[in-house]
């Protein structure tokens, strides 16, 4: 098959699935819904595989595929076109691969739901937009995908739409993302004004010649990053992501952990030439990233909802990825995107399996001892936990360590903060694991009676993801551990232009092997210590977190209340806007009416002759108007010398 056709098929196959299940919702039989819904992603995955072959056969040369001229004004064109390079290939692999697994899982998880067809359709639509996002060859196609995945996120968070708080969460996600999207859009406009094009290749080639920290480049990169903040849940636009857990769990795994939320990282890596030219922006990104990583991790320490812990963990891990970007460790960040996709999807799906078994219970205070009744879920969840905690030799260790090593080169303080964050990560993840799977069962007897391991359609994805989480690190083992950094080598051509544009920023004082080993040892050691700490607390001492009503010390209460950021936004933005809306409506409109009407009245009032007519009825006006129009038409047959006829 030609590469053009493959590029086209990859997003179209899931779209087709969406159309069939979506339009035929309530008519397609349940047994077919699952097959149709799964076929799109799986076939797309096969196409990605074939495309990979074509890409390799072409010596990893960039492939472009132009479909049509989408929007054009004058000399400015936005093509609907795709671009295949190393970055796209990686993202395509993750999106269709993990996407397929989660679709399979969803069949088991959702097939009892009345809205099963709708659910599969929305998941397919999400894949379509996500694939557009990573396939596009210019910023505007990326923006289509960007907003499209936001829509699907909205639809799926509010999937159970009779629940008002779910609906509110969905709306909040969409609106917060829109704030970021405005930044992205303005960034695109600045790119258009500066480079006269939105096509990646055009923009980046021209950018190579620009000055480091050029004002325009700073503006562009900051605006683009505002977009990334929204989509990838960084401070201050992160509060939608924990609320997004209202959606069914496969959604949390696919959209709010593995794929969509990493779009911000994809965007920065995609525009690495621009960001490399803007060290100032990178410093800002790094600062926001570490703050987000720590803030979210600290909240995660005290959460008791299994999905909320994972949600804050996702926010925190996204912070790590941006930390890497801030230290120009683009490859390391992408590496973490990949491994995170493996283990976070695994953890969410594991959580889903638990929730499924516990009859929709999500509070870990009411769980405990589940490892006996859910063995596969337990073992795979354990692997995911070890992977995310950064304990060798599982995937998270390699990717997080690579980020931290680069951060160390950049700033020792940031590295220390990063290690503190990873200690918290290890602690809250093992806390979650122990409270869920160890100790005594704390739920109702009814729940206990009902406990069961999930069906194969759900456990199979868990097992595959567990293998990937365990071995995923091998794709980029650093030299110091005897590896050959495959991923770094593969991705290297992506950064050629950036190296050319700003060589200084890539000239890291390379760490000697001793230091590198020491850093790894420290972070792995601390992670293990934190895990042991959690073991003593929650297994040995069998501590169970206090109920919500319990008295807490002030710092604990603040963290438990998520630093009251939501309340802060509510009183700083939401309520003032509402008050303004009421004030405009009741007072503003009245005042404008009075002023504009008053001026008009004053003008008219000066003529007493007209006054009598004004007080008259509307019909009189209309009559006059009709007459004058008739007169105007009839004038055709007369001449009026004083206006200038013959």
């Amino acid at each position: 098959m030609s590469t053009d056709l493959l590029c086209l098929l990859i997003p179209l196959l899931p779209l087709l699935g969406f159309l069939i299940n979506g339009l035929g919702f309530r008519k397609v039989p349940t047994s077919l819904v699952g097959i149709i819904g799964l076929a799109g992603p799986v076939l797309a995955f096969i196409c990605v595989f074939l495309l990979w072959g074509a890409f390799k056969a072409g010596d990893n040369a960039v492939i472009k595929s132009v479909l049509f001229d989408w929007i054009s004004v004058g000399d400015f064109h936005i093509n609907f076109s795709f671009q295949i390079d190393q970055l796209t290939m990686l993202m395509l692999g993750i999106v269709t691969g993990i996407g397929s697994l989660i679709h399979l899982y969803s069949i088991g998880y959702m097939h009892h739901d009345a809205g099963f067809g709708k659910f599969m359709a929305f998941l397919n639509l999400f894949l379509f937009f996500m694939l557009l996002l990573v396939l596009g060859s210019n910023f505007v196609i990326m923006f289509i995908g960007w907003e499209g995945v936001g829509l699907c996120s909205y639809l799926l968070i509010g999937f159970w739409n009779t629940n008002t708080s779910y609906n509110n969460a969905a709306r909040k996600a969409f609106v917060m993302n829109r704030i970021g999207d405005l930044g992205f859009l303005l960034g695109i406009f600045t790119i258009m004004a500066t480079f006269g094009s939105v096509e990646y290749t055009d923009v980046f080639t021209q950018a190579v010649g620009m000055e480091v920290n050029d004002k325009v480049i700073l503006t562009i990169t900051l605006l683009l990053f505002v977009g990334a903040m929204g989509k990838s849940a960084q401070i201050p636009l992160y509060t939608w992501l924990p609320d997004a857990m209202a959606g069914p769990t496969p959604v949390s795994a696919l959209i709010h952990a593995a794929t969509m939320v990493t779009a911000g990282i994809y965007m920065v890596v995609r525009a690495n030439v621009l960001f490399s030219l803007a060290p100032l922006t990178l410093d800002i990104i790094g600062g926001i990233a570490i703050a987000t990583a720590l803030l979210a991790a600290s909240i995660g320490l005290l959460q008791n909802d299994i999905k909320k812990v994972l949600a804050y963990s996702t926010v925190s891990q996204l912070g790590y990825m941006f930390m890497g970007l801030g230290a120009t460790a683009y490859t390391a960040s992408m590496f973490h995107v990949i491994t995170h996709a493996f283990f976070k999807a695994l953890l969410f799906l594991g959580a889903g399996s638990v929730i499924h078994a516990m009859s929709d219970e999500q509070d870990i205070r009411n769980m405990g001892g589940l490892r006996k009744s859910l063995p596969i879920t337990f073992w795979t969840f354990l692997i995911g936990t070890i992977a995310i905690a950064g304990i060798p030799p599982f995937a998270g260790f390699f990717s997080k360590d690579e980020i931290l090593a680069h951060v160390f080169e950049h700033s020792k303080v940031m590295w220390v903060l990063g290690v503190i964050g990873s200690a918290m990560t290890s602690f809250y993840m093992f806390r979650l694991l122990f409270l869920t799977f160890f100790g005594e069962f704390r739920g109702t007897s009814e729940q206990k009676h009902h406990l069961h391991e999930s069906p194969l359609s759900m456990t199979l994805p868990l097992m595959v993801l567990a293998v990937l989480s365990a071995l995923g690190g091998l794709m980029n083992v650093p030299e110091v551990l005897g590896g050959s950094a495959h991923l770094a080598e593969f991705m290297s051509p992506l950064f050629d232009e950036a190296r050319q544009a700003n060589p200084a920023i890539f000239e890291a004082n390379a760490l000697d092997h001793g230091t590198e080993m020491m850093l790894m040892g420290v972070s792995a050691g601390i992670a293990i210590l934190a895990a042991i700490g959690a073991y003593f607390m929650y297994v040995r001492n069998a501590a169970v977190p206090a109920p919500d009503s319990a008295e807490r010390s002030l710092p604990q209460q603040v963290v438990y209340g998520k630093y009251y950021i939501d309340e802060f936004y509510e009183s700083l933005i939401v309520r003032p806007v509402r008050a303004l809306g009421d004030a405009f409506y009741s007072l503003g409109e009245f005042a404008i009416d009075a002023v504009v009407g008053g001026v008009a009245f004053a003008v008219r009032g000066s003529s007493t002759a007209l006054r009598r007519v004004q007080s008259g009825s509307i019909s009189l006006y209309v009559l006059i108007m009709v007459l004058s129009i008739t007169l105007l038409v009839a004038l055709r047959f007369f001449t009026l010398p004083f206006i200038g006829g013959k």
Partner: protein
Amino acid sequence: MLTLSLILCPIVAAIAVLFSSRETARITALVGTLVELALAAHAFYYFTANADFQYGFDYAWLFNATDGKSGIRFSGAIDGISLLPVVLTGLVTPLIVLSTFKQTYDRANSFYALILFMQSALMGVFVARDGFLFYLFFEAALIPIYFLAAMWGGENRVKVTFKFFVYTIFGSLLMLVALVYLYANTPTTTTGVHSAAIADLYALNLSQAQQGWIFWAFFIAFAIKMPVFPFHTWQPDTYVESPTPATMLLAGIMLKMGVYGLIRLLLPIVPAGVDRWGSLAITLSIIGIVYGAIIAIRQRDMKRLIAYSSFSHVGLMAAGVFSRSEMGLQGSLIQMLAHGINVVGLFFIAELILQRTGTRQLDQLGGITRNTPKLTVYFMIILLGSVALPLTNGFVGEFLLLAGIYAYNHYLGLVAGLTIIFGAVYMLRMYQKSMFGTANTRTEAIADVSSSESYTLLVLCVFVFWMGLYPASFLKLTEPAVANLLQYIK
């Protein structure tokens, strides 16, 4: 000649409606508007993508000169700038007629005849090539819509339509004065008579001071029609009190007369006036975007919410025109069509819900989606068009408009861009409060859309996606005329 038939066909149909029986009135009206649609579709399909005026007609009318050019002439044609408003008028009117099929109106003959007269006048505005002819149709469009609102409207219709009428008449009078003044200033050297041809008005060499006055006369006339802040206070009440078909005509088509007037008359006739005052006009427009959107967030009545959203959106179109960039102008042309489609859809859906539940108040609705899969999907698609999601019609327009405004001034672009945030807030709020949540006694037995309603919504949705997926079918046709216009004003 095609252009002339576009004006005459609805009049013929209106007369036929007046003489048909009460039962067949709406069918006759539908047939008439469908013939008109065919004519408009023909004009669209065979339109040559250049800057020329096409399908024109030109007759002597008043104060004729021997050269057969000057004087006031009955002449009209379609160029790239008129094309999309003509298509909009041709497309939306049959849908409005179709949307009434489940309703029975008193004096149905008059009702449908007025809609058709309105269509004729609107077509006339969009094709007129003579300043006075433009004025004539601009005024004539007011009469049928006034009667529709005053006779079939809600409880407060008398007070509300009076305000509407006074406001718009006031604006029109300013325009008339400006036109007479311009006419009197056209040279008579070659032919001995003045000329009201719009092309001749473009060629006038007016002083800065003259241009300033004329700028304001035109601007206020068009600003009231759209409306632009602060000339908008007639609009929400009028939209709410009018019967929904009239609201659709007002918001879907009639307000585009204002945007069209800015492009056709204001920009090219007084370029120096726009240089001087354009920044003020664009600022007012952008204030309106944010002001209208913030009010929309708090509305409880669906119809009033949509009215304020329309006010907010039209500010963006006006601002795009005043950015005087190719993007801004192309954006406002395509957005006129897109907005017409979306707003007609939204008002129609509000009406559907009112007919079925007896209320448009958001706090009395909820849970509708359970019984109405079709309505849920149609509403969502039109809503996505309104919030300018990429691949829908709203995106293309808003993207180009915002790009044009941002290039004009970054800060204004940023403020105008707030529309994408606020738009999402009030639209999703409306959708959630009406469609989602738990059903109550009013909404639990709601019926899904009937087949005639479904056709209307389906056609609108097709346009939402067609324009969003392949806007080139529209942009290509308007581009040469816009480029030509920009040369004129620079």
